[in-house]
């Protein structure tokens, strides 16, 4: 039973790489054998978010071009023995790989891993086509902003056109204080607009920046975002977990004033 999951969004900077790193790490922490594949050729970043940038010898393009065997390019994570990374190339461009080469490489990896997670580049060009080519299901990441939701909607259309029908939504950078004031769309609003099943709500948490600074995914840690990512991992595996209440630590008075702001 191996599952190929593409993490995509359309718009850049909404948290695809952070999501890929945390979901991959979380699944590996629960004993699953996971490989993360960075498909953003020319702008690789998953290696730095994972803190593995110093270990890269070969990359995705080397594998596809036959400069090395796939085993030589795969890096083992420093924390979890069942977590692996296939980094992207930094000096090539998106046309260095095509979708059929990706499909072939993924089918080769399928029997070795429980989960294959593809970190998709922003945009809808070749890089996107490469990333979705071999995928069974998709996690669409968006933020509660007009531009990100618009791009997510476009991406959903393209995924469906490419016969990927299992699509789940992750809403990132939720600010409960702004929702309370009526200045940010709630996750219900976003789900209503995109009509996708919700698999995760991640709060806007400064610990994400700290974790990225350190090159340590924060999934499972005692932070709001860490718990949110942990819950996403459970749901990816098919478990039902209730959604966190971000209002939990809010005082009674803030809640009362919030009611008046909703208007």
């Amino acid at each position, binding site marked *: 039973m191996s599952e190929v999951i593409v993490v995509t969004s359309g718009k850049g900077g909404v948290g695809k790489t952070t999501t890929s790193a945390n979901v991959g790490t979380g699944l590996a922490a629960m004993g699953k054998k996971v490989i993360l594949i960075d498909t953003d050729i020319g702008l690789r970043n998953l290696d730095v978010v994972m803190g593995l940038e110093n270990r890269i010898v070969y990359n995705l393009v080397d594998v596809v071009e036959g400069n090395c065997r796939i085993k030589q390019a795969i890096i083992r994570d420093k924390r979890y023995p069942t977590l692996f990374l296939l980094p992207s190339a930094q000096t090539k461009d998106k046309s260095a790989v095509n979708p059929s080469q990706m499909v072939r490489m993924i089918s080769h990896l399928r029997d070795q891993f429980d989960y294959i997670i593809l970190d998709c580049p922003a945009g809808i060009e070749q890089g996107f086509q490469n990333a979705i080519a071999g995928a069974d299901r998709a996690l669409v990441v968006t933020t509660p*902003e*007009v531009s990100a939701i618009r791009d997510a*909607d476009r991406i959903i259309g393209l995924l469906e056109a490419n016969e990927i029908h299992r699509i789940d939504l992750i809403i990132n950078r939720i600010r409960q204080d702004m929702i309370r004031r009526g200045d940010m769309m709630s996750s219900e*609003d976003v789900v209503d607009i995109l009509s996708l099943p919700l698999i995760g709500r991640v709060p806007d948490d400064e610990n994400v920046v700290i974790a990225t600074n350190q090159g340590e995914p924060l999934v499972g840690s005692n932070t709001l975002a860490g718990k949110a990512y942990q819950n996403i991992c459970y749901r990816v595996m098919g478990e039902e977990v209730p959604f966190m209440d971000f209002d939990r630590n809010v005082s009674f008075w803030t809640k009362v004033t919030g009611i008046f702001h909703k*208007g």
Partner: protein
Amino acid sequence: MFKNLLKRKSSREIAKDRLKILLISDRVNCSQEMMEMIKNDIAKVISKYMKIDTKSMEIQITQTSGKGHGIKNPTLYANIPILDLKQ
């Protein structure tokens, strides 16, 4: 003024309303040129019967509300100011 204060939309509602209209036209894949052609043709037909203000008329694809839960029907909305009913 007080009435205005009560009626003011939150930025959340503004975002939601804008997105609903935006996504419908994105999904229909209706180009701006095509909308312009539809608008011109509508203007031509209506002008046969009455005098209209073609400069300030506007058309838009939106969602109809209601009709049960979760049903989203795209609707072509035309706003055509009439200058004179008699031709």
